[in-house]
């Protein structure tokens, strides 16, 4: 991985950072690269409440806020921004307000790399809306000033539309931190991680590949 001036990660939900980016974040931090994570919502509308339930609609945000902080701690991330929007409403916010939210972060932090979702190929409406705002904020910058943009895409038609990722990060040096970030979001990941841990213990090739490598699409303007 190349050294960056500053990395800005923008996702809408606590846990969006954990699955496919936490290894990258932890690795940059170990390299001494400043990393900021702007998380737009607290995942207020998450559906996993358990049965019997461990939370309700009104207590879930506080649980997920603590999990987000714990995930940041696991990755060694100190600049965590909670942007105060509500889960599942990002696409209904004023488009210009969203672009400004991103542009203000870029202006403040002057990142050389931004990581977010690929608009239109990220399944959840909040993901696509976040990606749209990021792309538009960068598109409005002069070409020479634009940071690089790495994106995550996982719609079922992704490979058909944009092929395979072109950026591959070896994050095998920070696997404990990545697992720490995943496990920090227990309300969302506990079932998934039980299965994942079994697969890792059995040295399942796909699980090990997930743990040790992360993949991005460079967004071109």
């Amino acid at each position, binding site marked *: 991985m190349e050294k960056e001036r500053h990395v800005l990660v923008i996702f809408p939900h606590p846990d969006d950072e954990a699955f496919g980016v936490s290894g990258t974040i932890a690795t940059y931090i170990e390299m001494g690269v400043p990393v900021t994570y702007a998380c737009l919502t607290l995942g207020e*509308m998450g*559906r*996993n*409440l*358990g*049965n*019997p*339930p461990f939370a*309700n*609609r*009104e*207590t879930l*945000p506080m649980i997920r806020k603590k999990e987000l902080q714990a995930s940041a701690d696991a990755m060694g991330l100190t600049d965590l921004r909670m942007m*105060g929007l*509500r889960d*599942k409403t990002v696409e209904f916010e004023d488009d210009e307000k969203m672009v400004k939210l991103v542009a203000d972060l870029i202006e403040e932090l002057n990142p050389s790399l931004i990581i977010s979702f690929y608009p239109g190929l990220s*399944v*959840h*409406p*909040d993901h696509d809306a976040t990606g749209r705002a990021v792309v538009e904020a960068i598109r409005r910058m002069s070409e020479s000033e634009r940071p690089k943009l790495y994106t995550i895409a996982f*719609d*079922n038609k992704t490979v058909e539309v944009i092929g395979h990722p072109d950026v591959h990060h070896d994050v095998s040096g920070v696997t404990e931190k990545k697992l720490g970030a995943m496990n920090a979001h227990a309300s969302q990941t506990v079932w998934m991680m039980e299965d994942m841990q079994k697969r890792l213990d059995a040295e399942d090739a796909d699980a090990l590949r997930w743990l040790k490598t992360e993949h991005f699409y460079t967004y071109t303007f």
Partner: protein
Amino acid sequence: MELVQRDQLQSLIDSFAGKDVYIHLETTNGSYAAHFQEGFFNAGAFIRNIVVNYELGKVAGDSPHRIGLKLPSGWIYAQGITHYELDEHGRLLMAGLGPDGKLAVAFEISETPFTY
């Protein structure tokens, strides 16, 4: 939240009748439904912090229950309610949780506004 005890829930719903109350009502299949099951028709609705004053509220059916509120000139109802609690802020929180622990419907009544 606990499994609905019909008589207790009925008396809680009665206790909010005739007052200006804030409503949260939500039905959802989750934003990933059509991702995991191609062709799934994903529908849902969400409304939060709408003030109403209902004259009659009823718990109907066996679990999962249906809850209906009769308004001066309209109705609110939800089906699939399995769990409820009166929280420390005096808000009546009801939810329909599937056997997988995922929320399918939430219906909440409060005399004070819910957070954002």
